[in-house]
């Protein structure tokens, strides 16, 4: 069941992105930034977690979850250390995505040539 909903919710989030591309003529960069901010905002109101519970990877794989987990990490640390925690905890949860991108980016640059 979760597989079905991961597909549907993940797909629907992408449809919203496509509408932003095609109807509002936003560049991919603008669209993705909007998504990340949106994810952070949704988490502020506690609306993103239920989404993840419901759709699993359908909610964690789209870039919106990046904003969500940044807020999450920041809030978790903030509970322990107050405002300082907001800064120190920021990447607690999201480090995997960014470090993977950096590491595989470097490996990619070592291994591949652009195909054109």
């Amino acid at each position, binding site marked *: 069941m979760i597989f079905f909903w991961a597909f549907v919710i993940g797909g629907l989030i992408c449809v919203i992105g496509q509408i932003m*591309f*095609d109807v509002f*003529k936003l560049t*991919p960069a603008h669209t993705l930034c909007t998504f990340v901010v949106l994810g952070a905002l949704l988490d502020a109101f506690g609306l993103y977690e239920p989404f993840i519970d419901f759709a699993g990877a359908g909610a964690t794989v789209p870039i919106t979850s990046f904003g969500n987990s940044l807020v999450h990490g920041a809030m978790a640390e903030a509970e322990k250390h107050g405002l300082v925690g907001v800064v120190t905890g920021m990447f607690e949860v999201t480090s995997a995505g960014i470090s993977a991108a950096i590491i595989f980016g470097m490996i990619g640059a070592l291994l591949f*040539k*652009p*195909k*054109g």
Partner: protein
Amino acid sequence: MLTGHRTWIFDKKPVIISTGTVVGPFEGKGNLARDFDLIHGEIWLNQDSFEKAHQVMLEEACQKAMEKANLQKDQIQFFLGGDLINQITPTSFATRTLGSPYLGLFGACSTSMEGLALSAFLVNYNGAKYILTGASSHNAAVEKQFRYPTEYGGQKPPTAQWTVTGTGVALVSPMGKGPQVTSATIGRIVDMGLTDPFNMGGAMAPAAVDTIEAHLKERNVDPSYYDLIVTGDLGHIGREVSLDLFKKHGTPIKEENYQDCGLLIYREGQPVLAGASGAGCSASVVYGHILNRMKKGELNRVLVVATGALLSPLSFQQKESIPCIAHAVSIENGGEEQV
């Protein structure tokens, strides 16, 4: 001789004595493969960067043109050309190899005809005996600079055009055998306020129309004087828009005599969306395909209108509109060989 505001009539009729065209693999699979001198199997050309490949392509095209005319490097008096890369380095570096005096040009995709018009002018007024002129572009190098990394997954809208990997050069001389350059009309900037860099055709169409109409008026000829009016890289949208503009202005241009290099070069089914573009597009198609057809006698009078969108990634990001330009050069078959 200046006629009207911006048209030159070349009374000595400079001759295009030879040409050299080199293209990449994608163009080699297109409609005009037989018209190119050299088709590369891969876009790197065994170089370690796209920019170097770009430069090598131009060097090879110059070599081809000189070979065909039996000329040596030191006989070339001037090289006039350009490309789309920052500070036109590929062209400058290629000319470093060539060693001839050099005038670098930038007219975006209109560079080919800007170069031909100026070369013809220089030759017409005894400025030189042999001038090489050309323009080139390399798909990956241009994408890298103007858009995204080549492997980046950005969806291109149906209005986008595909930058040609190709180069075309022509050797212009006051004497010899070949099609003659009879007149040229220099374009002015036309900016209709369009800002979409993925719709160049739509932005450039008014510039092409402006130049063509000025040319016809100042040279005082009817569109039917030409067997073919060929634009540089308007693509589907630009061609359609410009045809409708002609209709609106009452300029009797027939659809079958009005073609676009950007639509000629690729085959139906190649994933190029609205057509081809790039400085190398008009250069390789005109110096390859169109001149071959003229030599065969299929065409006798051709007006080439190379269109250029003079934007940069910076100007686009600063939300500037896209200024466009078009230069027209008429190429005609002369009666007999000039001496």
